[in-house]
C-alpha cells in the first residue's frame, strides 16, 4: 500500500501526516489526528454526520481520500468554537434550542450550518429547513435544529 505525506491546515493548525492512499479523510481526522468530533454514520455520503469544511465548503469526509485534499484548509466541529474557546454561535444555538439529543449527527449539522450562515446570514424558517436538508438526524425530528439555525443567525448578528 503506497503511503503519502500530506499537509492539512486543520482548524487553523498546520498538520503533517503520513497516510495510505486509501485512507479516508474522516478516518485521517479521527484516528490519525485525534479529532474524534467528526463522526461517521453511514460511510456512503448520505447521512452527513462526517461533514467538514474543506476550504470553507461543506464536504462529506467519508467520501474523500485524505490524499485528495492535501494542502487544504479543513474545519471540523472542534474548529467551530468561539475565539475565546467557548461555544461558537452555532454550537451555542444548539444548546439553547435543544437541537440535539444523542449528539452523534450534530457535528455534521454544525459545520454545515456554520458555512450556510456565513453565506446566508438572514435565513427565513423555510430557508433554515432547506439548509439542513442534506443531513440525517434520528433523534430530534429536526424542528429544534431549524430553530437552532435561526437562533445561531441571531447570535451572529448580535455579535457583529
Amino acid at each position: 500500500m503506497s503511503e503519502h505525506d500530506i499537509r492539512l491546515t486543520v482548524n487553523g493548525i498546520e498538520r503533517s501526516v503520513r497516510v495510505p492512499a486509501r485512507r479516508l479523510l474522516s478516518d485521517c481526522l479521527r484516528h490519525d489526528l485525534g479529532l474524534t468530533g467528526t463522526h461517521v454514520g453511514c460511510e456512503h455520503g448520505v447521512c452527513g454526520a462526517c461533514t467538514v469544511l474543506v476550504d470553507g465548503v461543506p464536504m462529506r469526509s467519508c467520501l474523500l481520500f485524505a490524499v485528495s485534499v492535501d494542502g487544504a484548509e479543513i474545519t471540523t466541529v472542534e474548529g467551530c468554537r468561539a475565539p475565546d474557546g467557548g461555544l461558537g454561535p452555532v454550537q451555542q444555538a444548539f444548546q439553547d434550542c435543544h437541537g440535539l439529543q444523542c449528539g452523534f449527527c450534530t457535528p455534521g449539522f454544525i459545520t454545515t450550518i456554520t458555512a450556510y450562515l456565513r453565506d446566508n446570514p438572514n435565513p427565513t424558517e423555510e430557508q433554515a429547513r432547506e439548509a439542513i436538508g442534506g443531513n440525517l438526524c434520528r433523534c430530534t425530528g429536526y424542528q429544534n435544529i431549524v430553530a437552532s439555525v435561526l437562533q445561531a443567525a441571531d447570535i451572529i448578528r448580535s455579535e457583529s
Partner: protein
Amino acid sequence: MKVFGEPIARLEDPRLVSGRGRYLDDLGTTTTLAAAFVRSPHAHARVVDIDVSDALGVDGLVAIYTYDDLEGRVAEPLPILIPHPALRAPRTGYPLANGVVKHVGEPVVMVVATDRYVAEDACERIRVEYEPLPPVVGIDNALRAEHAVHEDVPDNVAAHLVQEVGDARAAIEAAPHKLELHLEVERSASMPMEGRGVYARWDEADRSLRVYSSTQTSTSLRFALAHKLGVPVDRVEVVTPDVGGGFGVKIMHPWPEEILVPWAAIRLGREVKWVEDRREHFISSAHERGQKHTVRVGFDDDGRLLGLDVEFLHDNGAYTPYGIIVPVITATQLLGPYKPGAYRVEFHSLYTNTVIVTPYRGAGRPQGVFAMERTMDAIADYLGLDRTVVRERNLIQPDEMPYDQGLVFQDGRGLVYDSGDFPATLRKLRELVGWEEFEEYRQRARAEGRRVGIGIAMYVEGTGVGPYEGAHVRVETNGQVHVATGLTTQGQGHETVFAQIAAEELGVPVETVTVVTGDTRRFKYAVGTFASRAAVMSGNAVALAARKVREKALRIAAEALSCSPDELSIVDGVVRSEAGAEIDLKTVAVLANPLRYAFDEEAARATQFAVGGRTDRPPVEPGDEPGLEATAYYSPVRSTFANGAHAAIVETDPQTADIRILRYCVVHDCGTLINPRIVAGQVHGGVAQGVGGALYERIVYDEHGQLLNASYMDFLMPYASEVPKIEIDHLETPSPLNPLGIKGAGEAGVIPGHAVLASAIEDAEGFRIDAMPISPAQLWELRRRHEAGEVPGLTRGGER
C-alpha cells in the same frame, strides 16, 4: 431556585456540540486492534468449509477465529434473555456460525488485525463454501411451513399465546353489527446514527476486564460477559460511553460481537475494538414491526364495542434471543384507552430466515394501535358517525381509574391503568387541530382542486416497567453533588433531568450536580434503558436517594447548629435554621465523615481533635455510615400508563398520489414533567420516526432472504423536508404509583404514527387504508384498484 419542571438547557450539550463527546469509536489508542467479520451472504445455508489460507499473508493480520476456535461457554448458544411460557420453541444462534447460517449477515468468521482496513482486507481473502438451503422469507411462507428455519421446529412457530377476558367470540356473534379487518404493518428498524460497537481491555496482571459497549444495558451485559467468559463478576467492568442513539436495538445483548471482542482481547492480551459499519447494522442488528392482524369486532348502534377478537402473526426473524416481548406488548397495548367489551387475542410468533426482531421504539405498540384505531375508524364509517364520537363513547372514564383490563402485561403484572383523563386528551386534541372546522377547510381545498384529509389516533403506553432501578447520591466536601445510576443514556438528557431531580430534592444549584449513567464502576445494579422507563425508574431512585442524603444532612447540621432538624431547610447549598444560623452543605459533608487524618483544610475540620461534640458516643453511630451519601432503589408494583392522541392533516396529490403532511398535532400526558423541553424533544423525535415508519421506511427482503435496501440510500429515513412542524399540548396527570408522579415519555411520539396517517389518508381518498407504510406508488395503485371496483370505498354510514 426551582429546577424540577423547568425547561432548562441540557448540561451534556457543551461537551457534545464541541466535538468532545466520547462515543465508542472515539476510544482506544493506536495500538488497539480492530476486528472485522465475515458474514453469511446466504439466508439459509450449511457452512461446508472455511478456507483462510489466502488471508494468512495479509500484513498486519493478528488472528482469525471460526466456531471451532471457540471454547467453554463462548461456544454455547446465545442466551434466551426473556423466557416466556408461550415461547414453546426458543432458538438462538452462536457467536460464530456453528455449521449453519440462518440469515444474511450472521457472523461466520472473526478477523483481528492492526487496523480495520487490514482486517477487512483479510476478510475479503477468506473463502467460505456454503451449501444453500431453502430460505423462509415473509410471514405467509413461514406460516405455510413448506420449509423450516430450524429443522426441529417444522411449523416455524416459536410461540403461541392466547389471552381472553370474557367470551369475545360469543359477544361478537350476539352483537348487532360486526366487522372484520385485515391489517398489516411492514418491517422497519431502529437505525440509530451510531451503530453498535465494543471495545475491550484485558489487564493480564490484574486478571480484570473492562468492556466499553454502545449498549442500552451495561449492568446486564456485565453479568452476561462474566458468565460467558468465566471471569468473576467483580473482575468485569462495563462502561457505556456516549451513545449515538439506540431506539431499542441496543437493549438486545449480549450480541455475538459483545462476547467475541472481549474474548479475543483476553486471548490475545491486547486491546480489541469492533465498530459496526452501516451495512453490518442493516444485516446483523435487529429489526421490528412486521405483523399481520385479523380483527373481528362486534358493536352496538352507538358504536360501543361489545367484543373484540384479534388474531395476529408476528415475524420474529431467525432467532428469539429477546423472547416474545414485542407481540406480547401488541396483544395488550392494542386496547389503548378503550373498554373493549369482551376481548380475545391470539398470536403466533414465526421464524423466518431474516435478521432477528427485538423492540424498536414503540415495541409492538404502533402495530397494536394501528389495529385498534383502524377498527375505530371502520366502525365510525360503518355507522356514519364522527370518528371522535365513536372513540369518545368507548373511552375509559377518569372516575374508573385505576382500570384493570384483565390481561397480563409485558412485566408479568396486571394490565392496570393507574391514572389518566382520556376524554380530556381527546377534547384537547380536537381543539388543537380544529376538528370541527376541518369540513369547511376541506370544502375550500376541494374548490381549489386539492384533496385533503384529517386523521386521528389515540394510545395508551405502559411505561416504567420494573423490576427496579437504583441511584447513588453523594455530596462532596467541595459542594459538588455526584449522582450515579446504572441505566444508560442514548440522548434522552439524563445528565440534565436526573440533576434537576437531585438539585430540587437537596436544595443545591443544578450546575453543582454531575450525573454518571451506565458505568458499572459507579453503580452495579440496574436493568437498562428501554420501555420509556428511565425517568420513571431512575428518576424516582435519584429522588429517593437524594431524600436520604437530605435527611442525613439535616441530622448532622442540626447537631452542629444545636437545633432540631425540623427547623432546617436547604437553599442554594446552605443549610439554614429558622433562627438564622447556617452551615454550608459541603461543611456538613465534611462532618459526615469523621476522620483521623487531614489531607486538606476541609478534612482537618473533621479530624478527631477538631470536631468536639459528645465523647460518650461512637463517632459513627450504629446503623449509620460515614459520608454524606446514600443509595436508594425504586421498584414499582407495576407499570405506569401514559396516554395521548395525535391528529394529522394530509394532502394527497390527485395526479401523483404524493402524500404531504400539512399539520401534525400531539396531545400528550406523561404525568409530571421533569423538563418540558426535553419531553417535547422526545415527542418530536418519536413523531419523526412515526412519519418515517408510516410513509417511507421499510426493510425489503427478496424471496431469497437478501436485504435489498441495506443502505441509507435505499432505506428512506426522513430528512428535515419530510417531517412536519409538530404542534404539542401537554396534560399532566400524575402517576399515583411513584413519588414524583412521573410517567415515561420516550416512545410515545412514534406509537400512533401509522394509525393517524392511515386515518388521514383514508379520509382524503375515500377508501380503506389497511397496510402501512404506504408510498405514493402504493396509493396510486390503490386508487386504480378502487376505480376498478376492487377496493371498496368508505360508506360513511351509507349503503353497505
